[in-house]
């Protein structure tokens, strides 16, 4: 199913991207020439796609190889995303489980409604709040994320903490909601009742019977969020002036640097697909029912 999805999604998106530049280039003849846009659409698409597969991303309009323009930012964005995930995943799962155990209580409403509201507030708004409070007000963190070259891991984390926190705010609600829903379902299941009636302490019941079952769907959501995270990165990197893939894409879009834009967006698409694939694999590895069902 994943392979099918991949096959469906990639050409569709690339076609859209090829069409996008076209509409714009009608007025920009010089750029047209450079891109060989006078060739038939399919030929062009094939040329670009086949060279993408072999790792040749072409040249940006400033005559730098696209791979050069994109590789460093991709690594930089990876660091930021990793930090955000390291913070948000345990936090959101804990929040979701706590909310589920105290379902209907004030704590539950605070986590559920608060989490979802936090999710709906744009990343740059969080960024402004955090910069004003933690960077300007308390002077705890720098206002930009671009750490000096050769900075130690701890300095890097210090610089990346505020941007990561913005992403955490946006992601927390989704993951916590999934963890909450999964836990509530598991709490109501027959095996949980059996375990409780068997006389097991509540702590053991929750750890051994509830959590094992409830966290499965959460893992799938976490991986899906990795794709959405890329969208958030675009905005966060801009406001914190961080040289990541998101900023590279926005700059390419503003400068109409079509090769960089195409490859950058395709890279994000690939990251998204890989994340979905990993989610599916993790899901089947962790879930005995799916694992055993597949081997039969």
């Amino acid at each position, binding site marked *: 199913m994943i392979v099918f999805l991949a096959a*469906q999604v990639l050409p*569709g998106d690339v076609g859209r991207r090829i069409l996008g530049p076209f509409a714009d280039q009608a007025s920009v003849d010089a750029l047209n020439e450079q891109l060989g846009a006078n060739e038939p659409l399919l030929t062009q698409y094939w040329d670009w796609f086949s060279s993408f597969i072999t790792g040749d991303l072409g040249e940006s309009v400033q005559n730098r190889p696209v791979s050069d323009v994109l590789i460093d930012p991709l690594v930089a964005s990876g660091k930021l995303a990793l930090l955000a995930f390291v913070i948000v995943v345990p936090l959101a799962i804990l929040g979701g489980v706590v909310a589920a155990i105290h379902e209907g209580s004030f704590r539950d409403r605070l986590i559920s*409604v608060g989490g979802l509201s936090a999710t709906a507030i744009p990343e740059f708004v969080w960024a402004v709040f955090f910069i004003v409070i933690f960077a300007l007000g308390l002077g705890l963190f720098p206002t930009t994320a671009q750490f000096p070259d050769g900075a130690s891991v701890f300095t890097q984390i210090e610089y990346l903490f505020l941007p990561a926190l913005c992403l955490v705010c946006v992601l927390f609600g989704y993951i916590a909601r999934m963890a909450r829903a999964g836990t509530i379902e598991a709490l109501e299941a027959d095996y949980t009742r059996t375990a409780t009636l068997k006389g097991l302490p509540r702590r053991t019941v929750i750890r051994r019977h509830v959590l094992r079952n409830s966290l499965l769907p959460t893992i799938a959501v976490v991986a899906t969020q990795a794709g959405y995270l890329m969208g958030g990165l675009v905005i966060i990197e801009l406001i914190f002036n961080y040289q990541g893939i998101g900023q590279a894409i926005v700059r390419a879009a503003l400068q109409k640097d079509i090769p960089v*834009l195409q490859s950058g967006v395709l890279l994000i698409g690939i990251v998204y697909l890989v994340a979905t694939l990993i989610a599916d694999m993790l899901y089947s590895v962790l879930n005995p029912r799916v694992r055993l069902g597949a081997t039969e």
Partner: protein
Amino acid sequence: MSLTPEPAGATEIGTASPAVVGAHPSDARVATKERLALLRRSKSFIAGSIIVGFWVLCAIFGELLVPKDPLASDPINDLLSPSADNWFGTDKLGRDVFSRVIVGARDILIVAPLATILATVVGTALGLVTGYFRGWVDDVLSRIIEAILALPTIIMGLLVAVALGPSRTTLILIIGVLFAPIISRTVRAAVLTERELEYVSAARLRNERTPYILFGEILPNVMGPIIVEFTVRLGYSIFVAAGLSFLGFGIQPPAPDWGLQVAENYGVISGGFWWPVLFPSLAIATLVIGVNLIADGVASAFER
């Protein structure tokens, strides 16, 4: 102030109810009445309506109320800190931040609801068709929908904005088209259960035309999920519209849009000039929270 915003929230729901009433007179009217009663008692709905109502008033009458012209720049008095004269200070071009925040409600409150209405209309039609027909129509449309959903909304929006050239209309179209598939999935799921019910078979046996079955029979019965989805999506379209404007691919200068204001002034924040970015950010946050509170109230009233 608590009295004025309420009609704003009430009409929003009111526009949807006549359709329900029209289809199955007695039952539907009672159900609608119950839902409205539930809504009126919902604390989050009332709180949300007050917040959103405040911004709606600002959007409509803001220009008459603000102390200064939100577009008039005054380069000598740039980046003045908040004072009695400029309540929220002035921005990089010396424009009054308070006036710009108040009047800035207009752009987002035009774009987000229109985009969401577009998405809901298109998404509902798609959902009805895919859910009712199944088969190859469903397959083809579902694949296209998956393709659209495969990339983060902001990035898709950015690409389309680059292709079409950024403007308010483009922004509405982008959000409408990107959200339609999401809404169609919700509607499709609801239609899948409705189509098996007896009243649909009855209509089919009466030899009713398919459009009538879809829009006359099924639509009124899936109105609940659609209204809930509409309010939830409204929050997200504010999110996306503000994000794209911030990136420079949404509403264009010199409009006093909030996202744009942050974009124009975030460069000076590290110099300690927090006011031209903080106040529009607060405005976005309150509007989003208000819409979410409304969505929360609507969801608990409409989902049994």
